[in-house]
């Protein structure tokens, strides 16, 4: 048993931070929500978050950062309502597909918005669909969640980005094919289930707010480390 309440440092628009927010809610943990502006790199903020990024969890005076590491910390510190399974291979499987999301799905998500050339946007759309299909094939056939009937790490790592796909449609015409015969049918089943969860609804802003905040990516004024990395073609922070 541990106390006091963890402090969750976050920004309402950040999908990486939303992952941790979802995890906290799924676990039923009592926490303090602290909204920060991660673009203001004040000394106070950097002492809480050495990389200057959200999300950060501070518990018993100690900082945990990196969304997947925060989620594993939460899961281990508060063992009820587990997010990761117990068996070593099942755990590795969740981590492998979380890594796939980080390396193969997140980059085209941002590239689609940030690249100015239509050809590069189209490449990103194609890449995104290819990698989503790979992920879809790794899903438990019944689901509805990635590993089966319970929400787990992979669901939480993907959810904030999936619920932002409408932004990709708005600005870039990106769409995951629908229909029962589509190879994405299983993905769409996953998406419906995730969208319906309380934790998704409670951690999401309105469509208008998201459309507004993502405009600066599409007009190339985005100053985040993610935006800079995509423009430079380097790895995401």
């Amino acid at each position, binding site marked *: 048993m541990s106390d006091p309440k963890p402090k969750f440092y976050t920004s309402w628009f950040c999908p990486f931070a939303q992952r941790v927010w979802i995890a906290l809610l799924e676990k039923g943990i009592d926490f303090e929500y602290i909204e920060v502006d991660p673009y203001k790199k004040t000394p106070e903020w950097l002492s809480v978050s050495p990389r200057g990024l959200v999300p950060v969890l501070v518990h018993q005076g100690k900082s945990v950062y990196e969304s997947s590491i925060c989620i594993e*910390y939460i899961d281990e510190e508060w063992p009820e309502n587990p997010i990761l399974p117990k068996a070593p291979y099942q755990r590795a499987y969740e981590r*492998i597909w979380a890594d796939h999301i980080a390396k193969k799905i997140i980059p085209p998500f941002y590239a689609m918005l940030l690249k100015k050339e239509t050809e590069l946007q189209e490449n990103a759309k194609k890449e995104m669909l290819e990698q989503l299909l790979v992920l879809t094939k790794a899903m438990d056939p019944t689901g509805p969640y990635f590993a089966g009937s319970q929400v787990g790490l992979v669901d939480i790592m993907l959810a904030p980005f999936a619920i932002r796909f409408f932004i990709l449609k708005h600005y870039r015409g990106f769409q995951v094919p629908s229909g029962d015969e589509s190879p994405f049918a299983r993905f769409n089943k996953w998406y419906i289930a995730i969208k319906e969860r309380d934790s998704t609804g409670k951690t999401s802003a309105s469509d208008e707010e998201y459309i507004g905040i993502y405009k600066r990516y599409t007009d190339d004024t985005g100053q985040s480390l993610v935006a800079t990395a995509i423009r430079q073609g380097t790895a995401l922070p």
Partner: protein
Amino acid sequence: MASDKPSLYTAWHSPFGWRAWISLLEKGVEFDYHETDPYEKSPEWFKISPRGLAPCIRHKGKSVYESTICMEYIDEAWPCTPRLLPEDPYDRAYVRMWADHVNKKIIPHIFGMIVHQTATEQEKSKQDALDGIAAYIEAMRDGGPYFLGQNFSMADIALGTFGSIFFCMEHYRGFKVPNEAKFVKFHDWIQTIVARKSWQTVLPPREQVLEDWRPYAEGVAQTELAKAAKQGKTP
């Protein structure tokens, strides 16, 4: 019947591969070693490692890949000593954060300094690598000689594999971790690490390491690794 004895698919020259190899050796696990060329994109290879990545562990009919995920898997599948991650949730997060730091803030610059062909880019990579190493040293806990202090962990393996071939970066790019004040701890640490039996088992002869990195240093390597490294990414 799927075997309980794991198989390690890895390339002799890969520091990423050594992470999984060292982890198995440290645990005293019996395993089959399969020398692998991950650039040979054969259908057989993709059956073993679906993303084509090495190292890959095959165990009980399943594949585990990505070197950091392999280390955690090995620790969990064989939870004997030495534990590669400690018990306490915060300490576990600490090890993970600093292994992540090694992967994001040090390794890309180690590759960068080798694959970049202009002096300006090389110098920048060298400085960035040193900054990353300085932060890692700063994060080391007191009591030594390991990252967590008394206890060996995945954080030591994450950097210690690459750290054991820094002579190669010195040879090609004049890269040296200084001997002064804030870096002194690095030298004590790496000497202790490299002296471990597992490191002595996996480390190839010096000349072979130098020869293996030469195409990258001379800008003629066409591997995925070279292309990714030029972009500051590692696969």
